[in-house]
């Protein structure tokens, strides 16, 4: 890969495979994710990009029959260390899903601080501060500051997704995983989330899974192309989208398949 040594390593996988039953959905992926950079995972449906993303914060622990082999490290620490509580890992490595996931009847305020309450934080002043900070970080504060007690479900789709991001940010993750987080949004809301990714990357390391190639090229610093469960090519985004090394990458991003 081109000139990546200058960036600090945050996450790393070494020979990581994910099995559902006997067959690997992700095969032997070794990848380095750099600190405070945006990394995009691209590839056709079923290529394993989301499966790989979910392996990074132990989401497969919740799936029956799923097995992860190989290593996944955050700051050198084994994410799959059996002694490590997956909840702690998911605090460090937050996730935003394809569809906005506010608790619909819970207020906007309670939605944001839900994760904090879960770990026992009750200090009202602290919760207020974190709520405002998280909503500001997710660029939602100005739109909701006067109605924090209204239900999260009353917001528009784009606002709900930013609320989901605020909730993920409230627990101060080091890494934010975004699984096709704009695919259900209109262009304006998508644009707002993309701007937000650009603003947030100064504070957190972001990994996005996207089907939208233009989105990957617009917002990411690094791009990984997956195909049939394997990592085909990983490099700086400018390199991938101007002159990729692998023929299959070129064929995919120029729309010849997928």
């Amino acid at each position, binding site marked *: 890969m081109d000139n990546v040594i200058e960036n600090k390593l945050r996450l790393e996988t070494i020979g990581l495979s994910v099995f559902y039953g006997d067959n690997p959905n992700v095969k032997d992926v070794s990848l380095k994710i750099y600190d405070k950079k945006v990394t995009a995972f691209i590839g056709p449906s079923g290529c394993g990009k989301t499966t790989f993303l979910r392996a990074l914060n132990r989401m497969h622990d919740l799936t029956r029959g799923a097995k992860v082999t190989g290593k996944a490290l955050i700051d050198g620490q084994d994410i799959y260390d059996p002694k490590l509580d997956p909840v702690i890992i998911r605090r460090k490595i937050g996730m935003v899903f394809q569809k906005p996931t506010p608790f619909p009847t819970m207020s906007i305020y309670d939605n944001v601080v839900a994760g904090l309450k879960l770990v026992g934080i009750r200090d009202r002043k602290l919760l207020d501060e974190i709520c405002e900070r998280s909503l500001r970080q997710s660029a939602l504060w100005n739109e909701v500051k006067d109605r924090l007690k209204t239900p999260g479900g009353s917001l528009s789709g784009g606002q709900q997704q930013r609320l989901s991001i605020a909730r993920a940010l409230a627990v101060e993750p080091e890494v934010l995983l975004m699984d096709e987080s704009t695919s259900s949004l209109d262009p304006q809301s998508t644009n707002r989330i993309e701007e937000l990714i650009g603003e947030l990357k100064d504070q957190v390391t972001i990994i996005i899974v996207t089907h939208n190639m233009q989105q990957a*090229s617009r917002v990411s610093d690094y791009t990984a192309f997956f195909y049939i469960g394997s990592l085909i090519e990983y490099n700086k985004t400018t390199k991938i989208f101007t*002159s990729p090394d692998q023929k299959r990458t070129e064929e995919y*991003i*120029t*729309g010849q398949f997928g």
Partner: protein
Amino acid sequence: MSKYLQNELTKLKKKFYELCAVVEEDVRDAVRSVYEGDVKLAEKVIDRDRQIDMTEIEIEEDCLKLLALYQPVAIDLRLIISMLKINSDLERIGDLAVNISERSIKIISLNRKDDSFDFTDMCEKALLMVKNSIDSMIDFDMKKAESVIEADDEVDRLHEAVFGKVKKALEKQPDNFELLSQYLTISRSLERIGDHATNIAEDVVYMINGTIVRHQGY
């Protein structure tokens, strides 16, 4: 979306290759008009320049349209960017063919010739550079593109030789300035045509493998 882009690219390439053919023919005709003292051939080149200029603008507009509408990437992006740049070099080569044709007409009107000035070798080399640079683009032929880049030094050297010869001839026969200056301009135009062919070949290298090979002498 990709199919739309591929259809548009096919149309663009057709127009582009037609321009390549016209420009190559213009250089050949301009040079022949000097050899053969053929005014009609020279006038044909001059008349055809407007067509080249118009096609250049059309191709530029088409490239910009494809960039704006389809956001091409990888080979599609490199192809369009290269065409955009090569388009401009082709137009300039067309202008230089006009320049040679105008010198040719002037030489014929002077009714004087100095047979010691023989551009055959230089013409053949510059023409081959143009032909090979265009072929390398059409065939995605890296080796041919590299051969064009290497050939440029030889055309430069031939131009320097003509320059030296004109200088010496002027010292001996200063009254022959008008004729000698035509020869010098023709030589200079051929040398510039070689430079543009080199630019095209460099863009072909970029188009094929994404490497920018310009200005590597520093």
